[in-house]
């Protein structure tokens, strides 16, 4: 469904009545926590850099038991991971109730226009002259991301709800978000709410 809300707002609304532990994977400066002031969930953060509750490297299996956290959130994280399929399965494994994952739609009309005009997608795809770790390792297009998520979620027997987020940073996105275009062109970020079945 289309929404003008931010990914943080959507996550906060979906978990408003939940309790337990939430772990924010790839938390960086913990923006999500600012949206969870009213939540009963205990907030924990994880990142590949130090300074967080957990220091997880998603390129490797996580040293965490199954169903460890009521809520796991990984917003715009998986496209940074070479082993994206395994990392996604690991996040599902450690989730007890709900997992939220989001991806940038790099083939939305905003990015298509930008690439046509400038020949570059965004700074996250730059080939630098010296090594740089923080980059997108996958070109996440709307149809391929949806198929990828559906495939992994089906094998894990979860329910999934998709949110097509229209908000974006591109110069053209405010206009494009109002145009009567297919979701693959309008959507800037794709957020998936994945609910584990009780069984």
């Amino acid at each position, binding site marked *: 469904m289309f929404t003008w809300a931010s990914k943080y707002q959507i996550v906060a609304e979906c978990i408003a009545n939940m309790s337990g532990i939430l772990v924010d994977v790839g938390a960086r400066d913990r923006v999500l926590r600012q949206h969870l002031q009213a939540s009963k969930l205990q907030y924990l953060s994880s990142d590949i850099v130090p300074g967080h509750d957990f220091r997880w490297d998603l390129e490797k299996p996580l040293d965490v038991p199954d169903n460890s956290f009521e809520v796991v959130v990984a917003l715009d994280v998986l496209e940074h991971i*070479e*082993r*994206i*399929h*395994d990392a996604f399965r690991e996040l599902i494994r450690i989730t007890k109730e709900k997992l939220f994952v989001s991806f940038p739609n790099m*083939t939305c009309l905003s990015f*298509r*226009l930008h*690439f*046509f005009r400038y*020949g*570059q*997608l965004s700074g996250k*795809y*730059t*080939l*630098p*002259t*010296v*090594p740089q770790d923080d980059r997108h*390792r*996958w*070109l*996440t*297009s*709307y*149809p*391929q*991301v949806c*198929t*990828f998520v559906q*495939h*992994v979620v089906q094998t894990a027997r979860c329910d999934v709800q998709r949110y097509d987020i229209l908000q974006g940073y591109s110069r053209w996105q405010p206009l494009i978000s109002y145009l009567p275009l297919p979701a*693959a062109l309008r959507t800037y970020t794709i957020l998936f709410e994945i609910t584990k079945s009780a069984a």
Partner: protein
Amino acid sequence: MASSSRPVSDQPRPLKTYSRKDKYTIVADLLRGKTGTLLDVGARDRVLGRLLDPHAFTYYSADLSPGHDYQLNLEEKLPLPDHSFDFVVALDVLEHVEHIHLAFQELARITRKCLIIVLPNIATLPRRWSFLWRGNLGTGKYDLLTEHQGDRHRWLTVYPEINAFVNANSAQAGLNLDRVVEELESSIIPRRIAIRLISFGLFRNGLLTGRCIYVMTRK
């Protein structure tokens, strides 16, 4: 001052030419009249080997998969001594490698005389149009599939960035970037017409350049 410590901006400008031929023919032409040992990295079905004079070159192939003279993984340090081969060639290989900077330095290390690197330009006019119209770059090498595909492009190699990358890394490796041959893309504008347009000063910013072939020599 040693070339390895010379700032990139001080490097002499390489000779730049344009070609309508394919990458294998261009590289074979560049190697004509030379002799020595040659390692073809990412050789696959050894197309280049068939185009080289067997009396001039001792050809060795290398790939990640078995069935070659060397089975090499460019993600790691190569188990070969410095300056092992007179010529080292890597055609459309580095964009597949996560540790692209390390791989470049390793290829340079095992080169005695000349290193030839080929990188695709993904931001040609036809590819930009394909991305605008269809949302794909005209290749499946960037696809996110339901299962991990090992053989994929790990870098979005676009014209100004590959030039800057090779300039900086060849200088760091102590190599001189002598020559750049731009293989022209033919899908929209015939290559013959493309060369004319470029000679008139149009499309000089890589819009019609499908690949860049970089020739680097050791001092």
